């Protein structure tokens, strides 16, 4: 062998053969090191959840996003430890969206770095509602699903789409029109599962600017008896607890091990933290003009104080005042004292404070002429509607509901040794306060577009953000079940896509 090497070099020297350096252990001859699954069995991993599990990103579900969902990343790592095939109900293309309704299901967004703003990718969706796939599938994440949707029969029925009772993503891969997500999961006899549900039970209220309400406590836990809470409402925590316990009991009955992932408090994600409360720059002249426009309103507040129908504190809070520089936007706040009976001009408005959260989607509206009255400017002379802001009262509803859901999730884990918890709530709050660092020093934060964790919708994760979640899951799985799954390098996963 040694001699062969010298002969080889000699031949190389004479230029007879190509002479490339050879590694002692070339990659192509090096199989991925086998890992152990410990007490867990990864042969049939099923991931259950919503858009976060499906790999939804940039406002859309598209192929490369699905490929880099945390569940798909985790499943790949499981394959060295007895993991089986992990099938995903892929969309038809890497564009995302549905042909039938590209307004409600638009293609994905990409980043226009010149204007520093997300824009739709320049392509039309090709996936159809009727593009039914043959399953079963391991990644059962259904974008838009709330907790109770996973248990709802007919959620995958094409006939129910028009009634608003079905979800086109589940229609594409449901085993039959009348099945439920959980039934299709159980039918596959999972040996391992992750469940990340409950986000939309509070998120859809939040992304709608809190125009919904907290649903009242239902009097029964019979699923078929309870109409689903309205699209923009917060699911009642007691109702959530009943649903959640039902889902986890059903999964636990299979003796599968699994990880439950709790619900992050949505108020720290970039969808709510990117647009500042004082987003409007004014010069002195414009500020003066705007102040003149609100002089009557400010004066009316003082009259209301004198009349004893308004506290001086609230009057101060509601007084509109613009100065040269950055100015707080004017918003409608339903929680203010209603004075319109006294004076129709004294509407429920005030200027925003750092405690108000403006939605990411309002950024294109601020400072533009109002669509009803072009002489008014949105955010200044035209107050922003309730649907654009989360006020402190609305945030409190969200926080309370989130905490209650997470309490349910925590007790479910505590009661079952087959279950482990991933505290996504803490992780997401770390993203907002300094970021999370990987072992090789890659840092992601919740900064919009540049932070690396969140995609261009400000809500869902990037592939790199998903890699961090997958690594956290791996840590939880290894420490609870004694497996040796290897983490991935988040650097190998991209963040956002530029136009």
């Amino acid at each position, binding site marked *: 062998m040694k001699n062969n090497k010298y002969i080889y070099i000699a031949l190389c*020297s004479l230029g007879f053969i190509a002479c490339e350096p050879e590694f002692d252990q070339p990659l192509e001859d090096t199989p991925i090191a086998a890992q152990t699954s410990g007490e867990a069995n990864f042969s049939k991993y099923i991931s259950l959840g919503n858009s976060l599990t499906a790999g939804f990103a940039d406002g859309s579900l598209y192929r490369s996003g699905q490929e880099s969902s945390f569940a798909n990343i985790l499943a790949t790592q499981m394959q060295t430890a007895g993991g089986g095939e992990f099938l995903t109900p892929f969309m038809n293309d890497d564009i995302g969206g549905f042909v039938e309704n590209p307004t409600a299901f638009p293609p994905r967004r990409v980043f226009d770095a010149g204007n520093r703003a997300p824009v739709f990718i320049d392509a039309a969706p090709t996936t159809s509602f009727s593009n039914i796939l043959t399953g079963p599938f391991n990644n059962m994440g259904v974008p838009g699903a709330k907790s109770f949707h996973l248990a709802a029969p007919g959620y995958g029925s094409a006939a129910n789409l028009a009634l608003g009772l079905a979800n086109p993503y589940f229609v594409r891969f449901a085993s039959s029109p009348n099945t439920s997500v959980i039934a299709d999961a159980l039918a596959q006899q999972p040996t391992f599962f992750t469940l990340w549900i409950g986000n939309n039970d509070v998120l859809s209220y939040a992304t709608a600017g809190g125009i919904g309400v907290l649903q009242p406590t239902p009097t029964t836990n019979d699923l078929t008896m309870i109409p689903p809470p309205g699209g923009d409402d917060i699911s009642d925590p007691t109702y959530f607890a009943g649903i959640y316990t039902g889902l986890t009991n059903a999964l636990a009955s299979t003796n599968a091990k699994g990880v439950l992932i709790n619900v992050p408090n949505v108020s720290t994600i970039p969808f709510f933290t990117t647009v500042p409360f004082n987003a409007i720059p004014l010069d002195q002249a414009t500020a003066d003009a705007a102040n003149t426009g609100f002089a009557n309103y400010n004066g009316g507040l003082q009259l209301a104080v004198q009349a004893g129908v308004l506290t001086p504190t609230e009057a101060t809070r509601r007084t509109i005042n613009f100065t040269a520089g950055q100015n707080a936007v004017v918003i409608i706040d339903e929680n203010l004292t209603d004075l319109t009976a006294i004076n129709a001009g004294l509407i429920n408005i005030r200027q925003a404070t750092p405690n108000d959260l403006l939605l990411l989607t309002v950024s294109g509206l601020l400072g533009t002429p109002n669509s009803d009255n072009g002489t008014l400017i949105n955010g200044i002379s035209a107050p922003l509607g309730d649907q654009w802001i989360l006020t402190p009262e609305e945030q409190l509803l969200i926080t309370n509901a989130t905490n209650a859901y997470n309490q349910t999730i925590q007790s479910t884990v505590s009661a079952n040794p087959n279950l482990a918890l991933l505290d996504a709530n803490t992780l997401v709050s770390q993203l907002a306060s300094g970021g999370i660092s990987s072992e090789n020093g890659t840092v992601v934060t919740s900064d919009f577009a540049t932070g690396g964790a969140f995609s261009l919708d400000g809500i869902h994760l990037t592939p790199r953000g998903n890699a961090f979640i997958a690594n956290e899951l791996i840590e939880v799985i290894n420490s609870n079940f004694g497996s040796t799954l290897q983490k991935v390098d988040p650097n190998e996963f991209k963040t956002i896509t530029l136009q």
Partner: protein
Amino acid sequence: MKKLLFVLASCLTFSSIYAGGYRVSIQGQRALAMGHTGVAVVNSAELAFFNPAGLVFLENKLNVSAGVTGIITNTKYQNLDTRQAFETDSPVGTPINLYATYKISDKFSAGIAVYTPYGSRVDWPSDWAGGFLVNSIELSAVFINPVVSFKVNDALSIGGGPIYAIGGVNFNRSIEAVPGSESLSGPSTIELDAEGVTAWGWKASVLFRPTDKLNIGASYQSQIDINAENGDVSFQNFPGEAPQTGFNATLPLPSELTLGLSYQVNDKLLLAFDFNRAYWGAYESLDITFTDGETPDSINPRNYEDASTYRFGAQYDYNSKFTFRAGYYFDETPVASGFFSPETPRNDSHAFTGGLSFNINNNLAIDASFLYIYFAEVDESFDSPNDSAPAFGGTYKSNVFAPGLGITYKL
């Protein structure tokens, strides 16, 4: 835009092409065949490079040596953790050397040396994992070095002369306007290009001949700072509006000291040894400034270390037609651990050389040489290329093959 530019510039790494590994020493076919020894070998016009002091001891009035070498450099990268593997696809480099010397009097000789001490090029695949450090880099440098030699007495001579250096560099790397982002329009890259950059330096040397069998030599080349002024900066697939700017940068070519001796064992056999010290410590950091006054400066620590090369050579006069040569040298890398970049994927190396001369007649000879450089496999990384680029490491393995051909003419 400001922030974008900041990210861009802080990602920017420039070439450290002047690394020891790229200083593939091929400045004479005969010397190379003997492990690139030569500071004490009085043999041919190649002395104009190796030790100009010795020119006055050459027997003939006119000496010319010319040669060209093809350098085939292969570097492979792999990372068993990330399971990625790439290899360079670099074109063949062709350094040249041209030396001519003329004995003006018994005491004085003059000569000129033209050579290309930096002629290497590294091309990685366009979509490779280290693209944010380097995609491709090419350096061309021509040194024009007129020299004189003065015989102090029969045992001692001194020599030297000014060096006029003409250099050019082209460097291409990937950029990320947003960390970790991909671009639909293809990889965004920046290319820096500077051509025709000139600088001056000097060389001085001494040759001591205590006996007619033993030569002892020393040669010193000054540090030459290549100042690229307002070089071209171009962007490919830049997201948004690309900055319009040039760049300034200073690259030190370090000073070098060579000490050596040769011994004529018998009529046929000559042995030579050179010790070479390159003062790479001068290359602490590569600082690039952009001329638009808006793009922030890019500071790239290099922290090179002084490095030595140990050279051994032998020459055997087989008969009047054939002379055979062989040699070996050990070359220390100036690259410090943790600063190992794919633009200079060079660790310590062992070089094996051989060659022969065929004398066509008393005046003309054909010289052939061959160089093989062996690099041990190395696990290395670039831990903190700059503020924003992540660490990049893996396993590297390189080799170099360099066959060369030249002529020697004496009159």
